[in-house]
């Protein structure tokens, strides 16, 4: 799953993520992070068999968890399948199909908006 974690200032100094990995045997990937002494936000992707317990642990520790479902969306009517967005995606969430149809993988998307800002026909939108 992919989710935004919101840290309050009081827990910024706690080693929650490393305990998470140690105790629940999950793998995770930090996709975006913005943490300051005043608190912060982190976009992570976690997977593992104890994912449910891991989420409960984080919530108990005071992290606000906000799961993301749909992230990137292509307007089929507007898209001309030019592919200008493909090489801009830092996580390879946009790929051409065999017939060069531009395909977006919203599970991979981290919502960086590089593609939306660069689309010549404004056909890609990022939505949370």
């Amino acid at each position, binding site marked *: 799953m992919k989710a935004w974690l919101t840290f309050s200032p009081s827990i910024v100094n706690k080693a929650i993520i490393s305990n998470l990995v140690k105790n629940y045997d999950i793998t995770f990937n930090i996709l975006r992070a913005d943490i300051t002494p005043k608190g912060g936000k982190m976009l992570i992707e976690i997977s593992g068999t104890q994912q449910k317990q891991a989420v409960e642990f984080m919530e108990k520790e005071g992290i606000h968890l906000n799961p993301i479902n749909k992230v990137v969306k292509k307007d089929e009517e507007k898209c*001309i*399948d*030019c*592919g*200008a*967005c*493909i*090489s*801009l995606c830092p996580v390879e969430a946009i*790929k*051409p199909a065999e*017939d*060069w*149809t531009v395909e977006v993988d919203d599970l991979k998307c981290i919502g960086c908006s*590089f593609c939306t*800002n*660069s689309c*010549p*026909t*404004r056909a890609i939108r990022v939505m949370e």
Partner: protein
Amino acid sequence: MWDIMKTIREINQKIKDGDAVVVTAAEMTAIVRENGAKQAAEEIDVVTTGTFGAMCSSGAFLNFGHSDPPIKMSRTYLNGVEAYSGLAAVDAYLGATQPNRNPDIGLEYGGSHVIEDLIRGNEIELVAEAYGTDCYPLTEIKTQITLESINEAVMVNPRNCYQNYSSATNSTDETLYTYMGTLLPNMGNVSYSSAGELSPLLNDPYFQTIGTGSRIFLCGAQGYIIGEGTQFATEVERKNGVPVSTAGTLMLKGNMKEMHSDYVRGATMPKYGSTLYVGAGIPIPILNEELAQQTAISDEEITCRIVDYGVPRRSKPIVREANYHELKSGVIELNGEEVPTSPLSSQKKALEIALKLKEWIDKGEFLLTVPVEKLPNKGRTVKPLEIQKPRILVKDLKGETLILAHPTDAISEVARKMVQNSINHLPVVDEGNKLLGIVTSWDVANAVAHGKNKLTDVMTKKVIIAREEEPVDVIARRIDKNKISGLPVIDSDNRVKGMVTAEDISRLIGGD
């Protein structure tokens, strides 16, 4: 010369009889590979090509009809986009890249978007202004038009269908927004624009069958080539018979009332401007074995230069050459790194267009034409525009005595140098005068405020620089874009030669 095996007249008879064999340029590649050019030339009558790319040099002639009382329009605006009206009373030419006159809309809805809206049949607001004459008394008009309500809407594109076009990358450490799309810093991506083996002019590279009067597919209508395009060149480097960079171009014409929005689209290159995606397809009659061979060209055999848009000059440095098979694979190696690639033109639409044109010919709805005049295939080069006033380079600026700081300098020493020389920036260099960073009076104040004593802790290490050989105009834009007040001048060995400031440049411009 190769023996003529068929004539266009004979092919047209076959089309009418429903017997013509038509394949796309991609299919032709495989056919010739399998059976050889001779057999292919006997069996295949027409090869269709296609491209769907951003073609800025496009636009439309519109005739609005006369109002009562009449008006001699001297300025016209369509949905807020100005069309050139220095023609007869109610004629105008709408260019694809014209921005909206409303600065809040600007590049987001320009000439190309109006063209698309017209073709979609949408209502367009027409505002016209005039000075008023005895025969044309009205001085202003505001009304709604549609494609159907106006007399003519003729797309006339001075330069479409570049034979080949260099790919773009960016060596600088900032993102660039160009007509080749968004280019990531440090050669983070490569953008290419040709349709490769499907591209019309790569399939008849010496224009043996294409010329003025050739009937073509244009944005879903049957249009025509009305001559060579602007910036047309023939004297270029070739590999496997096809140019490795820009060469031939086409001037195209078509009736917008017959066009379809599937094959034309208004677009905006971010922070660059609006542009029109034009769908064009050209049929190549296979008159002889040589044409069979030429239309069989594959992506592997077409070379394309990758150039550095980090250098905003007419000639951009070539980073490497690649073929379209490599470019279309999605990654390419640049200086030992794997770099992702993006097409800028739609490969999918290009094939759709080639297939649509094939369908028209198969159904007998489209006949081939003998050009009235062939396009020139030799003796043409592109001339540069020389600026008569000599271009001032950074090295021509009169430098003041160069004041430098060294990493070991105390903050107080740096402050003293700034005050003594009335300057705000100081390049920080090593013993060999090579640039390490830059320190500003703000950095010094910051150091004092936070009790920092080491220069290396407060200086900026990522420095925006000027090179000696760069024109001053380029530096003026760099200063403006980065919102800085000055930058160090560096020679080819990265040694600091001086400073150039916004003041130096405004003094220069003011002194004209």
